[in-house]
Structures are given as C-alpha cells and as structure tokens.
C-alpha cells in the first residue's frame, strides 16, 4: 500500500516550507527515517525524513516549490503497485527560480534533480530573475504608486506589512537608500543620484549564503515591523559564580555547566511568572505558549542559529547544559536537526565570552522576548557606603511592545535577579 509523505510542520509558526532538493529520486529504495529531501523553513534548511519504507514512486513537487504544511510531497510504495495521484492543493506555488521544472503534475520520466536554486527567499526575489510584471507583488496601492513614480521594481522590495505586504514605508526606506533592497551588481541605480566618481578600491560583491539571506530577511522583518523596547538590569554574580565553580568541580570535563546554562534555567523559571513574555503577537491576539522553550543563539559559520531547549523550566540545569552542548555541536557542524531549531518561545543571546558589557538583541520572530547577556565582570561597587569590588553582569531584555510594556519588562528583569542572585533556587 503506497503511502504519502507530506510537508512536515516543524514549528508552531511554520505554515509552509520550500523544497530545496530531493535526496532520493523516483525509483530509489528508501527506509523509514532515511533522508528524503531537504526543505527550507523560515528558520533554516533541514532534512526531511521519510515516514514510510519502500520505493520512491513519485516526487510530487519540484525543487523551489513552496508547499503548505501537510500537503503531499512524495509517494512511497512497492515498485509494482498502481498509485493514485493525490490532489495538489492550489496553494503549492512554484518559485520563479525553478521555472523550468514546472511539472507539479507527474511526468512519465523519472524527474531529474534540479540544481539547487540559488535563491529561495519569499519576497526578496532578485529582480533580474523575475520577468517584468510576471509576478503579483503584494503591495499596498500607495506603495505601488510610489514605486511606479520612482521607477522602482517592487519585486526587489522587502514587505513589512501584514502578510508581507509592501507598504509605503518599505518603499520609502528603499528610496532613502536604506534597508529592504537586495543589492546586485549590474543593476542600474534607481535612486537617481549622480554617481560619485571617486577612484577607489573595487567593491567586492559576495553572494549571500542561504543562512545569511534568511537572517537578513527575518531580522529586517523583526526590526522593521516589531516595535522593540529594551530594559537593562545589572545582576550580582558572586553567588552564581561560586555555585557554578562548586558544581563543575564535581563534574567530568565535557559535562561542565556554563553561566549561560544557569541563565537559561533562570529565564525559564522567571517566564513561568510572566506568561505574557513567553508569547507571540498574532494580529488581533496574543498567543501565550504553554511550553517554555528557550532558544539559545549560537554563532555558526557566517551566521547564527537558535537551538532550542524544550521545556527548559522543567529540566535540571545539568540536563539543559548537556542538551545545549549537543545541539550546539550539531549546529556548528552543519548537522542541525529540525527539532533542534524549532519551537522556541523565548531566546537568550549571550556574548559574555567576548568581554561585552552590555548589548541589545533583535527579537527572533514571532517571540515576544529575547534576553541579551553580557559578561560577568569584576567592577567597583558601592556597598554599605563604601567602594568595593564585586562581580556584576548586565543583561538587556528586548520585548515586543505590541505584547507587553516597559513595566512588565522591568519586573521580569527584577524577578530574574531572584534566580541569578540566589542560584540555589535554580536547583530546587
């Protein structure tokens, strides 16, 4: 009996995925759990495992197709059985970048694997790859009018409105020479400024890596469309550092706990008291997530990934440490699993190892909060009216102002102190 493999949902906010590459071709053998394809979600490129064993009978979508979650992408069955073609929902869109492999309808010949598309971003489709007027760009009428007046191709503009609609400010940002435009060599300037003829070193034009493109899009979307506010708090670190030292003395090399592991646990426990910050803004409602899944930003080659410690509030610190360590390892090795990076409800970004006093992070959509953690530093402090030396660490929370307000952010940071400054509470 043939089975259908569908686009998996890899996170609560995932609605569709882009098929990047088929790992198996039609006619090949596959076992349940084997990698069938690579797909790209909003957050990363991940491997899709087959949910069935047998022969790959039909690949239903071509590389570059954007497929809603739950829609069939392939059929796996026995080599000789007659298979019926499931209906492809009309919402499966063919990306322009894969224009040649148009056939979402089955072809008799085994499908040739298309070369990996160079660019699969949803709205920042490169202008030179889009025949003029061939794609309906979702833009507000005023955005269309302004773009038309300034001879600007909206296909090159990043939309920040609802559903990615290009609105007036997006066009204005581009016209002002700011964000939201994919730069490309050879594209004539549309801004209408006279070119500055200064002899200079040649610019180097580098193609953005896929990860970089994703970061660019998601961070632009976040920074442009989400009103951020920031609250900074300074924490007394003596107790936590002592606690960590004592614990690590007992642990094997490789099992050691980082300051960040404590902070992840502390943030998770504090979020229990602040469900409004463990949330996502969604149009006319706020979704408060049932689970507290802390995402931890990990620097990887030419970018960053957020690995997720599920149910961080319910796990002991040593378990958080060991899970994060494994996931960070996979992330840096390029072997990240879908579950490593999906489902975070709140993020922690720690630059403590770089001797950073303090910084502010951009929210990781659709999360409502992210905690940016600086270094624990030995600094002069005033205690009982006299100057002393103490260990202090600054952290800054960024919050989606549509969901919460400054006072709540400040109270969160205060409550966080309870766990950081009295770390025995983390061990209860």
């Amino acid at each position: 009996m043939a089975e259908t493999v569908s686009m998996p949902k890899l996170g609560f906010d995932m609605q569709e995925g882009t098929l990047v590459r088929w790992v198996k071709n039609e006619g090949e053998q596959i076992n349940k759990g084997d990698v069938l394809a690579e797909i790209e979600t909003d957050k990363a490129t991940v491997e899709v495992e087959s949910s069935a064993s047998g022969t790959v009978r039909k690949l239903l979508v071509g590389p570059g197709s954007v497929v809603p979650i739950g829609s069939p992408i392939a059929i796996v069955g026995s080599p000789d059985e007659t298979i019926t073609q499931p209906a492809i929902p009309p919402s499966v869109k063919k990306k322009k970048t894969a224009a040649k492999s148009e056939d979402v309808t089955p072809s008799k010949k085994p499908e040739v694997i298309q070369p990996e598309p160079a660019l699969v971003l949803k709205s920042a489709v490169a202008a030179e790859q889009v025949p003029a007027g061939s794609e309906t760009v979702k833009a507000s009428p005023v955005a269309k009018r302004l773009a038309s007046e300034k001879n600007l191709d909206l296909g090159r503009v990043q939309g920040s409105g609802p559903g990615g609609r290009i609105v007036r400010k997006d066009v204005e940002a581009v016209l002002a020479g700011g964000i939201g435009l994919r730069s490309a060599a050879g594209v004539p300037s549309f801004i209408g400024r006279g070119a500055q003829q200064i002899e200079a070193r040649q610019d180097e034009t580098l193609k953005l890596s896929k990860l970089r493109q994703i970061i660019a899009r998601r961070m632009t979307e976040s920074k442009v469309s989400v009103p951020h506010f920031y609250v900074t708090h300074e924490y007394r670190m003596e107790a936590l550092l002592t606690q960590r030292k004592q614990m690590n003395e007992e642990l094997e090399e490789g099992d050691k706990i980082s300051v960040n592991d404590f902070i992840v646990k502390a943030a998770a426990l504090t979020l229990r008291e602040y469900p409004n910050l463990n949330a996502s803004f969604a149009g006319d409602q706020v979704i408060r997530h049932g689970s507290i899944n802390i995402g931890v930003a990990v620097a990887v080659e030419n970018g960053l990934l957020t690995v997720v410690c599920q149910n961080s509030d319910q796990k002991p610190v040593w378990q958080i440490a060991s899970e994060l360590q494994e996931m960070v390892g996979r992330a840096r090795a390029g072997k990240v699993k879908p579950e490593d990076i999906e489902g975070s409800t709140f993020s922690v970004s720690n630059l403590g190892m770089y001797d950073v006093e303090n910084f502010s992070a951009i929210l990781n959509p659709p999360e409502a909060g992210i905690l940016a953690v600086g270094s624990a530093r030995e600094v002069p402090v005033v205690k009982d009216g006299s100057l002393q030396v103490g260990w202090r660490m600054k952290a800054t929370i960024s919050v989606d102002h549509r969901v919460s307000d400054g006072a709540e952010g400040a109270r969160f940071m205060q409550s966080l102190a309870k766990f950081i400054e009295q770390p025995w509470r983390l061990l209860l």
Partner: protein
Amino acid sequence: MSKITMREAISKAIWEEMERDPSVFIMGEEVGVWGGTYAVTKGFYDHFGARRVKDSPIAEAVIIGSAIGAAMVGQRPIAELMTINFAFSAMEHIVNEAAKLRYMFGGQFTIPMVIRAVGGGGRQLGATHSQTPDVIFAHFPGLKVVSPGTPADAKGLLKSAIRSNDPVLFIEHAAMYQLRGDVPDEEYTLPIGKSTVQREGSDVTIVTYCKGLELSMKAAEQLASEGIRVEIVDLRTLRPLDMQPVIESFKKTNRAVIVEEGWKSFGVGAEVASRIYEEAFDYLDAPVRRVAQDEVPLPYNRTLEQAALPQVEDVIAAVREVL
C-alpha cells in the same frame, strides 16, 4: 470665548435666532411649559410665549407635517422630535415630503425648517430609545443631515440650519449635553456641509462625527503617548457629505479608521470607506477599518449595552490594525 455645555450652546443658538428673526418658532412635545425634556428650551416659554413655543400633541407625523406646511408658507419652524427614535412615526413627512416637495414641484416650494432630534445610546433606555439611525436619513437627497460633536460646532451649525432655506435634520446626542467646550462669545455661524480637521496628525486618519468625535479624541490622546499621531476629520454634516478634508488627510496618512455610533452595516463607515477607495485608491497603505455599534438591538443591561457600543479601546485597536 466661554466654556459652555453642548446643551447651553444649542439653547443659545435657538434663543438668539428667535430673537433675531420673528419667523422662527419652536414646536414639539414638551418644548414649552416643561422646558424641553432635555431642558434645551428651559425658559423659552416664559420669554417668548405660547405663540412661539408651541407644545404639541404626541403626534410626530403632524408635528413634522405641519412644520413643513408652515415652512412652505414662509415661517421658519424648528420642529423638535423628543428622540430620533420617534422619527420613524414621522418618516413619511421627513423623507417623502420635506426631502422631495421642492424638487418634485420644479423648485416652486422652499422648506426652511429644522427638525431637531436627540439620538444615541448608552443610557439604558432599551432597544427602541437608543438608536443612532442617522444614516437612514442621510440616504435621502433633499434633506440635509447635521450632527455636531462639539458645543462650538453645535451652536454655529444650528444657527446655520435655522437660517437655511432647506429642511435640515439636526441630530443631537443625548449623552453629550454635558460636554463642555470653548464657544465664541460673539455672533457666528458655521457652514453646513463642511467637514473639518479637529486634530492634526500624520500617521492615521480617523473619520468620525458626533459622539464618535469624543471617542476618537480620547483614543488619539492615548495613542499620542506611544508616538502615534492621529488626525481626526469630523464630518459634522452627513448630507451633503464633504469628503475633501477626508481625502486630503488620507493622502497624507494613507490609513483610515471610521468611527460611528450607529450599526456598521450600510453605515457612515461603509460610505466613507467606499469614497476613499473610489477617490484615493492609489494612496491606500492598509484596508480601511470601521468602528461601529455591534449588530444588535441595544440591550437594557448596562454591561451588555456598553459592550455593544463602540468604545475608546475599540478605536485604539482599529488604529493599531491599520498601522
């Protein structure tokens, strides 16, 4: 400039016009000895006498019908409907006679009358006494429909209505009589059929009138604390509808919210939004939103009634939606 209530502004407008023009008189239920059920004509009976302050039977059709007749033969009656809900008993004369007689007889007749009517909900009067059916009347060519949102506008517009040679339905809001505002001490009138910007801003345009103005001003105040600059256009007259300030504002902000107290279906919001789409489509940055009464006969229970009526929070939410 004096700070006076809406009630005082309306009262003064009628008083001054009656002093100025002997052809002006007021008639209706309890306008005389009682002094007006909303005390607008308190003191009028004693000052002007029974000839010019006429207590009528409770018979809305003949109140409006006879005012039309008196206006056609040269007087300037102000016919008061105790509430606009009773206008339905006089619907024939408001929409089929007052609005049509001039046109239908080739312009021979002139009907210089004012129909004053009190509308609006929020006072726990139940479904039949709490309506805002303004748009029904604004539907008819031949009628002018005015509904002010400030004491100064009320006075200036009512004086114009009394001096107008056309039938004017002047709609007051029962919950706004205590509203205070600056009103010029000197003689003035304001033109009927002119919308006006009541608050300047650049991020979003709120189009509203009457009670909606009060809600919108409060909403704008709160949004200002977040840096959102709201521009408010007060229609003041529903017919003839002056869209020019609305379109001008919209071309600046590209976003609009329409706030009215009446039901949403087929309402002011529907009309204004359509005109924005027709006249300024290329300036749209977001769909136009409407804030209006829930589609339910207004209940007596206070909590339910308030839930059905548009509130400041609804206006704020709608503004956020279009931003």
